[in-house]
């Protein structure tokens, strides 16, 4: 697919990396020659130096024949203008990164009148992901399928916990919950496990289940449950705003610590029910005074990765129950796991995944389309949601009779509102939403899971 990516910043580079790996024909357009050089050095892509709002540059980048243009510069208006121009020049689809909430609200108008295919808002996605984890705080990470009907939870097996040393086929019998372990990451190895797989301490396991079943399982397996009732957010960024909005809606009391006074005033205006504290979030005294030790959750969202990590470590040592850290440098992730900061979010990675999902869905316009895509274990495993087409070869055959590729597991089927955690006797019906967890890459159609 011919794709133009405008803006090679953090998000742009991440998208370039992900799409180049999948073999698309990519042209990167950026005003900074160093950025263009870096990206063309690192990936098999073409670079054009110039602005995304200048026709000549867009034409040079091949906008006339592009299937998709993704504009991810730091400015909303440039992104929108770029998409509109590219569309007029002949690009088929366009995605603009837009962060201003007021602009995001105009999406229907922009789609119908300006021809922009979709808007992506990294801050909003990051906030949603954090809010999901806060609903089930004992999980490291929560992803949702089929509008939240099915959850994919990442858990850590604690030493001496109930799960340590247990074979997977015993899980259902022991805890009585309908769940499925669909992937296990142990040190550097990834397993798509069978029934005889035995869990060990420090394994990270990925579980699919419906919301109530997951809660029941966590209770039975001895994971601390209990809702998050109050949360402290350090850093009053846009993500903080979206997150506070979502948390307040679910009845969590929110306290935001922000250093800039004007921003505090603005936040207090748009978030009347949150407590806004003006002060330096890196100051130990302030954090203790504001009760970081007693808070159920502490979310660090300042603009600097390192600050976030330090504050998170401090919050954890003070006794905050759940700590979530925002980091953009993927290189820091393994370091964080080693100091016990399990849950982190990276807006650029989330955005890249959403765009990947969009691209794969566009590549397959007829068959069983991709609805959702998540990458697990540092993009070594993919969890995909397909809607089974009527012509699909997977339809109507009991799962045990399907010849499924190695490293592929059907981890959930959603039929209307019913969640099925599948066994060999179940079968897929047309229009079912099918959740596939796989170590293979680049599936665009449900039929590709078959040999």
């Amino acid at each position, binding site marked *: 697919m*011919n794709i133009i990516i405008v803006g090679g910043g953090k998000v742009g580079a991440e998208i370039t990396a992900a799409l*180049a790996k999948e073999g698309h*024909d990519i042209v990167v357009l950026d005003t900074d020659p160093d950025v263009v050089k870096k990206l*063309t*050095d*690192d990936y*098999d892509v*073409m*670079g054009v130096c110039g602005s995304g709002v200048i026709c000549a540059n867009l034409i040079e980048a091949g906008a006339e024949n592009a299937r998709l243009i993704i504009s991810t510069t730091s400015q909303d208006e440039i992104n929108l203008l770029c998409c509109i121009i590219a569309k007029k020049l002949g690009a088929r689809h366009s995605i603009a990164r837009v962060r201003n909430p007021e602009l995001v609200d105009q999406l229907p108008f922009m789609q119908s009148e300006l021809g922009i295919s979709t808007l992506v808002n990294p801050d909003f996605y990051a906030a949603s992901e954090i809010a999901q984890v806060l609903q089930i705080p004992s999980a490291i990470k929560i992803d949702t399928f089929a509008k939240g009907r099915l959850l994919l939870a990442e858990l850590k097996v604690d030493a001496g916990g109930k799960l340590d040393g247990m074979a997977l086929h015993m899980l259902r019998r022991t805890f009585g919950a309908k769940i499925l372990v669909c992937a296990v990451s142990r040190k550097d190895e990834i397993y798509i496990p069978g029934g005889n797989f035995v869990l060990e301490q420090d394994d990270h396991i990925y579980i699919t289940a419906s919301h109530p079943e997951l809660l029941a399982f966590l209770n039975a397996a001895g994971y601390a449950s209990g809702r998050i009732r109050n949360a402290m957010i350090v850093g009053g960024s846009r993500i903080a705003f979206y997150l506070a909005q979502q948390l307040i809606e679910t009845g969590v009391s929110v306290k935001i610590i922000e250093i800039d006074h004007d921003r505090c005033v603005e936040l207090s205006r748009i978030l009347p029910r949150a407590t806004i504290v003006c002060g330096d979030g890196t100051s130990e005294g302030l954090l203790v005074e504001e009760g970081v030790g007693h808070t159920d959750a502490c979310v660090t969202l300042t603009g600097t990765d390192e600050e976030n990590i330090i504050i998170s470590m401090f919050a954890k040592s003070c006794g905050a129950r759940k700590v979530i850290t925002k980091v953009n440098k993927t290189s820091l992730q393994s370091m964080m796991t080693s100091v016990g900061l399990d849950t982190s979010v990276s807006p650029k990675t989330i955005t890249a995944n959403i765009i990947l999902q969009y691209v794969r869905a566009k590549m397959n316009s007829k068959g069983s389309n991709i609805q959702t895509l998540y990458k697990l274990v540092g993009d070594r495993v993919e969890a995909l949601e397909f809607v089974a087409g009527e012509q699909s070869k997977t339809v109507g055959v009991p799962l045990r009779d399907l010849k499924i590729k190695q490293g592929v597991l059907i981890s959930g089927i959603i039929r209307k509102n019913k969640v099925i955690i599948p066994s060999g006797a179940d079968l897929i019906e047309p229009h079912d939403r099918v959740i596939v967890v796989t170590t293979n890459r680049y599936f665009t159609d449900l039929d590709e899971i078959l040999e």
Partner: protein
Amino acid sequence: MNFRYSLHIIGSIMRVVAALMLFPVLVSVIYSDGCAVWFLAVAAIMFAAGMLPLLLRVADKNIFAREGFFIVAVTWFLISMLGALPFYLSGQIPSYIDAFFETVSGFTTTGASILTDVESMSPSMLFWRSFTHWVGGMGVLVFAFAILSQNGARVSHILRAESPGPTYGKLVSKTKINSQILYGMYILLSVVEFALLVCGGMPAFDAMLNTFGTAGTGGFGIKNTSIGYYNNAYFDYVIGIFMVLFGINFNLYFLLIRRKFSDAVRNEELRWYLGIIAFSTVTIAANILPIYKTIGESIRYAFFQVASIITTTGYATADFGQWPVYSQAVLVALMFVGGCVGSTGGGLKVMRILIMIKTAIKEIRYSLNPRTVSSVVIDKKPIDRSVVTGVSSYLVTFSLLLAVSVLLVSISGRDFMTNVTAVIACLNNIGPGLGEVGPAGNFSSLSALSKVVLSFDMLAGRLEIFPLLAILIPSSWRK
């Protein structure tokens, strides 16, 4: 330094080159000249050598500029050393150093020859000799990446090291497709030239080999008197025009394919290139008019020689060693200019000259009025400062290498003119110089040391110096 993966890539390129060696086998069978066995043997050795790295397990597939330099430099050395074997083993070039010189001269598209009697070579040897021009012209690695499937990211580091010019750009997103397009246009142009020569009555074998020499801007003649042997104005013009065409940036042909005619024509480098050719042709024609009598004849010889020298091909239709001094001076100046960026030509490249001239003008203006701020603009785009400094340091290194080579070559004696022009002709990948190495003479009488130095110069000229010098610096070998 990622040796394992670099060796893997080098190995796969060796296998490709081994496959290329089957072409002369075919020629040998057709003409039954008995040389097939040597080519088969060397191809087998090459293939086996190319399989060796497969024994190494590769975990890390990351390569950077350093590995790119290493891969390119080592590949070129290896193919030259192995490519020389058929000449040596068959006994048609008795000395290995001579055979090596001849092969380096072929792959680097220099066209400097040590053969005193070309016509005595067997057809398959002649074919291989000219074929190295054709392969080396667009680039051995470009060719390999056009057909190998393992094109991952970061291949651009390798192609940048092999492609001539101060900057490196792609035509399309994928490196593999990019290489295929380049070779597609290259093959197309070659076929057209071949057809035109055959239509004019040149024997097919000669037409093919002369086309190889033109396309790679190499210049190995297959007759003792080069193209002058045919003494045919039609051939002179066809070959002359095609030399000029192969000296043009191939990206411009791609623009033509995409129907962006005005962009192609407006290209500043192209205009300078054609301007220089026109100017040199006219003034030399005027200068040599007394020798050739008619205007038509002098333009014919002047144009052919100008095209041959500026594109660094090195074909000759006349012994320009006998021309007036002015003509010789212009030709020596053209040796440095070279073709356009992204062409098969060698030399400094018109683009670099253009950047240097514009920088010089800028500096003069600056010294008159120190407050002026201006940037070097080409094709209405400002040239990045790093490119300008890159060009200057290239020029400095180039001059140093030139000086050192002249000193080394002078150890073996001979006259100044011969030594200097021999180095210039090799470093710029042209072929003939003046004096003893002029179009009427050749490089056979030089000492072994001189031949080794000149071989190095030819490789340095083709790979634009840095990759070759880089592997001589110890720190680049460290892990």
